[in-house]
């Protein structure tokens, strides 16, 4: 069964550093998403991406965040200057449109 692949599975970074989280969505999906889940809290939407541009974003997705689909297969989330409160599990997902989403296994980001 097709999978969404995320790398790395765990990343530790120092406050103020930039991180890039990587995702390979399902190849024939058109919509791509990033969500995050702070430990013990609910899953929160960050951003959706369609046709090489952001289609929707939440209040969380401020100027320190950016997304890119650099090569037609990878989908990345960049956090420019990490803060302690960015520590969370980050999930990538993709969908074909009106059907269910497929989520990756997540990247656990720890900012120290």
């Amino acid at each position, binding site marked *: 069964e097709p999978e969404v692949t995320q790398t790395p599975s765990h990343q530790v970074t120092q406050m103020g550093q930039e991180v890039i989280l990587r995702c390979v969505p399902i190849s024939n999906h*058109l919509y791509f*998403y990033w*969500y995050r889940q702070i430990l013990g809290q*609910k899953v929160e939407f960050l951003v959706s991406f369609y046709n090489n541009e952001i289609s929707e974003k939440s209040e969380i997705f401020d100027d320190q965040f950016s997304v890119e689909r650099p090569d037609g297969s990878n989908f990345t989330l960049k956090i420019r200057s990490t803060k302690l409160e960015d520590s969370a599990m980050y*999930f990538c997902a993709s969908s074909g*449109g*009106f059907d269910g989403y497929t989520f990756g296994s*997540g990247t*656990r980001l720890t900012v120290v």
Partner: protein
Amino acid sequence: SQQGEEDPQALSIQEGENATMNCSYKTSINNLQWYRQNSGRGLVHLILIRSNEREKHSGRLRVTLDTSKKSSSLLITASRAADTASYFCATDAHQAGTALIFGKGTTLSVSS
């Protein structure tokens, strides 16, 4: 904003018993999905029910949807210890590729 909210927040049952989790949301939806998350792990898509459907089955899972009450239920029959996890409902609006809005989840503990 549309939002899935589950209840109860926590549920403890014995193996073999049925577990019922409920979800309520606020605005009209395209579909409602249920996800499972083992502690510290990724989101696993369980079942999707469209707004024009009232009930759906998948193995030991049964999902109902009442759009007039803006509510859904997930029933797990004959529970097993391996069903121990958090269960989330998620809704999306009438637009392809729109964000999923997750509820806070129900933590299910099944003891043997």
